[in-house]
């Protein structure tokens, strides 16, 4: 459980920092950099979520579907 809670906070932290970076870069008119920062943050989080969803599906398979 401890590891997962860490990752929850990590996701939230990345979200907040990326949002701030986006606003700061937007204000000075560097819109393309802002987009890139958001994209990278999103990919990182998506990676985390995808790996845990994979974990979940493996567990479901092994418990319910007898494989």
């Amino acid at each position: 459980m401890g590891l997962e809670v860490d990752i929850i906070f990590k996701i939230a932290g990345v979200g907040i920092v990326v949002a701030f970076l986006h606003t700061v870069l937007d204000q000075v008119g560097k819109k393309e950099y802002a987009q890139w920062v958001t994209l990278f943050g999103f990919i990182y989080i998506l990676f985390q979520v995808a790996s845990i969803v994979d974990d979940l599906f493996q567990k479901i398979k092994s418990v319910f579907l007898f494989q």
Partner: protein
Amino acid sequence: MTFSRKLNQSFCFNRKGGSTIEIIKIVGVALIATFLALIIKEQKPNFAFLLVVFVGCVIFLFLVDKIFEIIHMLEKLAVNAKVNMVYVETILKIIGIAYIAEFAAQITKDAGQGALASKIELAGKIIILAMAIPILTVLIETIIKLIPS
């Protein structure tokens, strides 16, 4: 999984204390995640959405051991009652499919794609029905046999 060895020894297992702690843990994680999602949602809704998905997975993974216990008990009951294992397996598979479909449908609904959610639910229902065909045919055959011709 960790419980499986213990389970083999006793048919009737009484869980030790600690369930209350576990529910407190889950509620705490869910509440924290809710607050964090609220904070992020203002700036980046898609990040908040991913966070919610993640927490859903975490909570289920936490529960998976207990679900395994329950299923194991059901299996043992079935074996003791001399029920054909194929039926029990099919029912368990149906439960699994129902859970997966429900999970995906909830997430898609949260993301604002109601139409997709209903399609997933439809797919789940149809697949469950298809899996239940052998059981249904056996049932119908039994009923037909019972009817005196």
